[in-house]
């Protein structure tokens, strides 16, 4: 009883209640650590529309669909569990988890993040392949990282095959007699 009395008497002058926002109005959120996993921020400029984040998303909040000329990437923040797997996998570092945790809203439309990226159409048949930016990025990456001796050959091949969809590419390789399947038929 005496120890409890001592603890109670020492507690009389030291309340631990702090005001909200944590830390007071001058230093907003000063008690929030830097690594807090809050709302993910999608960068419009850097995203290439590859869809890797939609495969990795643990809860299915991140989806994309192709509509007409655009690839539309939609992230439903009400379903997001802030795990950070999209941030790990993005090849362009376009996703960052900020420390913003005040996401309560009564208009559901405001909790959806939408990115629209133009699609690239096949030069031969016109079906959309993928986004323009992704094709440009693929070309850039190959040309910067490939062995210097075969760089010219690679550049020529890319200009021939990169802008075709896979059906047209298949037909073209039959025509030019370079399809790999021919090794299995004979």
């Amino acid at each position: 009883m005496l120890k409890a009395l001592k603890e109670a008497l020492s507690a009389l002058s030291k309340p631990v209640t702090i005001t909200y926002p944590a830390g007071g109005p001058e230093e907003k959120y000063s008690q929030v650590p830097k690594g807090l996993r809050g709302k993910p921020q999608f960068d419009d400029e850097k995203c290439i529309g590859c869809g890797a984040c939609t495969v990795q998303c643990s809860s299915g909040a991140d989806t994309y669909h192709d509509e007409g000329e655009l690839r539309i990437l939609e992230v439903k923040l009400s379903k997001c569990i802030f795990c950070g797997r999209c941030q790990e996998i993005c090849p362009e570092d376009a996703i960052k988890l900020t420390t913003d945790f005040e996401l309560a809203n009564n208009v559901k439309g405001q909790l959806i993040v939408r990115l629209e990226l133009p699609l690239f159409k096949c030069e031969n048949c016109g079906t959309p392949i993928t986004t323009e930016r992704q094709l440009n990025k693929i070309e850039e990456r190959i040309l910067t990282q490939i062995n210097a001796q075969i760089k010219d050959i690679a550049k020529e091949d890319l200009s021939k095959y990169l802008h075709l969809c896979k059906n047209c590419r298949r037909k073209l390789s039959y025509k030019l007699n370079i399809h790999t399947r021919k090794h299995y038929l004979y």
Partner: protein
Amino acid sequence: MSFILKALIITLIGFILGIILTFEIRKVFARAQYRLGPLTSVYPELKALLGSTRILQPLYDVLKLFYKETIIPQTTSKILFIISPVISLLLSVFSLYFVSFGGFSVFANRDHSLIWLIYVLIAITIFWLIGSASSSSPWAIIGTRREAELLFSIEFSLLISAFSIAIISNSLSIQEIVYAQREFLPFILVNPMAAITFLLSILGKLRLKPFDISEAEVEIVSGPCTEYSGKLLGLIYLSKYFMTVTLVAFFIDLFLAGGQISNFTLLNVITFIILTLIVTFILSLIHALMPRFKIDQAFKWVLTRMWPLSIISLIFSLIIRSLGVV
């Protein structure tokens, strides 16, 4: 001064003191737990919203309850259900007139005011129990049974310790007891055992821990007050505020010379108020530090610890009186 004017002034003083003491109980309970509790001064950014102080928080609670709708269940006995809180409140206001607030009182200088006061205190609880027994909820029935058991055990020790003080001062009038202390010594030094049992009995009557068995939230929802809502619940709260003042003033009159250390009424009243704040602080600390008894454990504890102590204090005061010390 005329009778009625005194009664009105004392009702007003009792009301204000009741609110302040209830505020202090809640504030010390919260501060002992590292919390803030109701605020004496509000933060600057919240002043526009809340006003500048929350010291009248118990008053706001009662006023809020008076705004709400009173729901009376169909299966209760309606007359008893409605009348009992009203009678309980009237009796608790009536009990204020028997104690002296630093020399200022209505009936404290009559003979036998001690016995009147103890009757009224028992009647307050009994009418409250009648009201709760008439509500048809099973929680209320368990709560009433527990509270009645507690009432039986606590009232006895309160009675005996009050009587042992009356024996020392050879009078049953509260004002005479105070005058006897002014000549000799405050009775808390003469018979401390009676003081201890009286203080613990106050905990039992006010339903503070460790004796808040009838209001145990974890087991029975709200005990006897479960079916009350709105204005009737407000009346029950009010009667508890008045009873707080009465009991604390009773303790000070019996043991601490009623704060009447001089002949000036104003100085006496100020000393009285300071003493009420100190006694409430002690009560609230005990309330903050203890868990709750079970009803059979409480009954056993009161019978084996408090009853013998109060009987010993009675015998002690008899011995002192017969030896002619006082």
